[in-house]
């Protein structure tokens, strides 16, 4: 951490987005995490993605649980809505907020402890319900705040900083998210912003439950030899299936790609993603294929990253429940209390 505030000055030539903001306008307070924490890079990537998408900060609700990762919403989007909830309870708070006001952009930020242990059930249910959100897990495989115990995502056989070997099987949140029906599933690495930033941008634009597992080395407790979540290990074992560019709006695509290397994915709102294939056989529309691809590579010790699955025809909890089209706080008394006649009608229909 640092004692001084980040100076207000910024580079005089910084680009501005459609709203006239620079990326500095999307910052929050200065991070109090350890120097070099991977989470800070994810924070920077969220800032960059929101800047590139020209998101109005007050249109975002950032919600988190407990842990190093869950502290980070304080460090980005200082002008957004925020809710630092109870340990593992981010998904239910987010779901509730989303039901009340469907017009905000929901950013759930959690960690491996928050989502794979105490909040595992919460995680599962928010995904299977298809809550329209971007659910980011900042995954370092370790309990950093309590000084380095293995978390539920630590790989079997990996070594702690103190030298202990982990004997428990790991939970792969990506595999679970795929199984539970997430309509956008990706994995990335905090040390690779060129991959991570467009993934976050695409997830924000995705309608439905978008899940990103970001491997984020803990420099204090999980960045040593024998760790499978260290900078060096992830760089050596990173198997990226694709890279993507988010194409905002409906502008014609001007980027020049070699034929056969690009797959265009059009999402509900008309935004498009250009996927530059690295693995030519990988099909990001095949959920079952993705699951077995993931398992096969995990068995070989490879960390599969990229956009692993996307359902362009996805929908969300609001369409499942057929809720009202507008935020609840815009309904007037007449809508909320339609009167005795309406009640009678409902009661009659249930008899």
């Amino acid at each position, binding site marked *: 951490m640092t004692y*001084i505030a980040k100076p207000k*000055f910024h*580079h*005089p030539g910084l680009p501005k987005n459609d709203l006239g903001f620079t990326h500095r306008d999307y910052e929050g307070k200065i991070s109090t995490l350890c*120097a070099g924490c991977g989470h800070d890079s994810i924070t*920077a990537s969220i800032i960059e993605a929101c800047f590139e998408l020209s998101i109005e900060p007050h249109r975002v609700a950032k919600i988190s649980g407990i842990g190093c990762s869950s502290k980070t919403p304080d460090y980005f989007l200082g002008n957004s809505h925020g809710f630092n909830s109870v340990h593992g309870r981010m998904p239910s708070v987010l779901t509730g907020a989303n039901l009340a006001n469907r017009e905000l952009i929901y950013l759930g930020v959690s960690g491996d402890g928050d989502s794979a242990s105490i909040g595992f059930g919460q995680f599962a249910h928010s995904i299977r319900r298809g809550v329209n959100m971007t659910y980011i897990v900042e995954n370092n495989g370790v309990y950093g705040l309590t000084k380095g115990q293995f978390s539920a995502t630590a790989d079997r056989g990996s070594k702690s900083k103190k030298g202990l070997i982990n004997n428990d099987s790991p939970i792969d949140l990506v595999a679970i998210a795929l199984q539970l029906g997430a309509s956008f599933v990706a994995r990335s690495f*905090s040390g690779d912003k060129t991959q991570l930033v467009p993934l976050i941008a695409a997830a924000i634009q995705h309608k439905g439950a978008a899940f990103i597992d970001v491997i984020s080395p803990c420099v204090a407790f999980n960045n040593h030899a024998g760790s499978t979540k260290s*900078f060096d290990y992830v760089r050596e074992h990173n198997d990226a299936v694709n890279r993507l560019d988010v194409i905002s709006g409906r502008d014609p695509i001007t980027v020049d790609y070699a034929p056969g290397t690009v797959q265009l994915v059009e999402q509900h709102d008309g935004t498009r993603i250009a996927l530059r294939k690295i693995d030519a056989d990988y099909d990001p529309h095949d959920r079952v294929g993705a699951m077995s691809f993931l398992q096969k590579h995990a068995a070989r010790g490879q960390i599969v990253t990229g956009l692993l699955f996307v359902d362009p025809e996805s929908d969300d909890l609001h369409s499942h429940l057929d809720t009202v089209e507008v935020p609840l706080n815009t309904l007037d008394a007449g809508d909320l209390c339609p009167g005795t006649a309406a009640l009678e009608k409902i009661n009659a229909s249930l008899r």
Partner: protein
Amino acid sequence: MKPTDISAPDYFHKVVDCQWACPAHTPVPEYIRLIAEGRYSDAYMINWRSNVFPGILGRTCDRPCEPACRRGRVEDTPVAICRLKRVAADFKDDVKHRMPKLSAKNGKRIAIVGGGPASLTVARDLAPLGYHCTVFDSDPKAGGMMRTQIPKFRLPDSVIDEETDYILNLGIDFKGGHRIDSLKQLLTENFDAVFVGSGAPRGRELEIPGRKEAAANIHIGIEWLASVSFEHVSKIGKRVIVLGGGNTAMDCCRTARRLGGEDVKVVVRSGFEEMKASPWEKEDALHEDIPILNFMVPVAFVHDNGKLTGVTFQKVKAEYDANGRRNLVPAGEADETINCDDVLVAVGQENAFPWIERDCGVEFDKWNMPKVDARTFVSTNPKVFFGGDAAFGPKNIIWAVAHGHDAALSIHKMLSGEDITERPLPEVTISSQKMGIHEWSYDNDISVDKRYKVPHRDKVIALKDIRAEVELGYDVKLALGEAHRCLNCDVQTVFAAPLCIECDACVDICPMDCITFTQNGEEEDLRTRLKAPSPHPDQDLYVADGLKTGRVMVKDEDVCLHCGLCAERCPTGAWDMQKYLIDMTHAGTSCPSKARSAA
């Protein structure tokens, strides 16, 4: 790009923009930190060693450092470096005991012609080494143009006396009121070396109709200023026209306002922006209700039987040719005559060497200037050196000081039997400023304050007394505020690639987006791939290779705040903040060869 060689003394020197731009290379951030600490005497001595006249320069310097100041690229205005220098001079304790001690004479005798800044610098550098220095000046007191041409309301005599005395008290033989009329004669007087620092003493004439007839009320600016300084002149007509757009013109018009000039105008050939006067001097003139009229070329002095009544001007406009060169062409408007009682001509200065015989070994070029080597300041006579305005024409005090240092070094080397063309490198020290996990020995919390204004004396009072100093200088509180604006550019960001784990922490925290990790390429290409635009190619890129991913670290030095957040955020100590002190080589600096290894 090739990885940057940070051991080359110039690399980090260039990052300290102010020091790099200063002809004498004064370690600006170092003394500003001392001012912030209240260590005014220490700040003064750093200045004194480097620029010899801190109190004088703190009021009158042309400040090449300020346009270079990094702060001017980060926000609107640079740090008020010049006026902070004055703070050191104003608030210091008695520093007499810190001056060099009188040394035993080494038997070598140096003649120094002229008592201005270049000459006094030579004397100051050489006297402590044991040289017997004799300074000749036609004026009774030392100081040269600093005393004669700069008005007292900008630079009081007391300041000149104090700072010339520090030098003269080093055992220098000052012969005031002694004009040298013959270099040949001087060379026969058994001096081991002669330094000519006689300035550019002649004001340029303006030969237009009426000049001779109305001569009684037409004065040459620098001569008139000198007469005012020596109190030979104490009044001027009510309506005064000052011709010329340089700093001398500004001094003339403001002096005229104090000697009875009620309607004083400055009339300039060029446009306002292109005027040679420093912006702050123009501001001060305007503040004293002196209009500056531009694009007007004087064509005739109007007189009534020899009594000046006005000046006629042709109106011109600027046109630019294909090469961007400006030409002033008639605007096609009618000429305008402005009535006046007196005219001050301040259209430039010239060198004049009537006292140097052309057969004493000093060769002159076709412009009648002595042939002087730009590095060693030696003339074609190996015993005769030039410096200040006498060497390359009119510049300013700080250049004269820089010339003096270099000439003194040459003289010392020559008289030590060394090759004067071998110039020792500056002495460089670099040391980490880390005091604790996130603590530094300098204040890295960047102030966002705007430049503080220097308080001025009330205009009504100032205009009544020609000796009343207009600028009152910063008080301690203002000085502290201004000192905090300094970005400490001498505390360098030093990167060690083998320690870097490429976690991006520095990239994310850098408030100015200076740092990029990317594939290497040619400079032109790299500059297009940085995290933020790179509009100043004269500002270096710091490139380091040897990273595990094969990328390079590229840091654009341009707008780095030197806040040290990269180093605070670095988990492995790959970034460190290290103070880089560059001490220019002066005559008698010991062990200059060490500089290479220290760097």
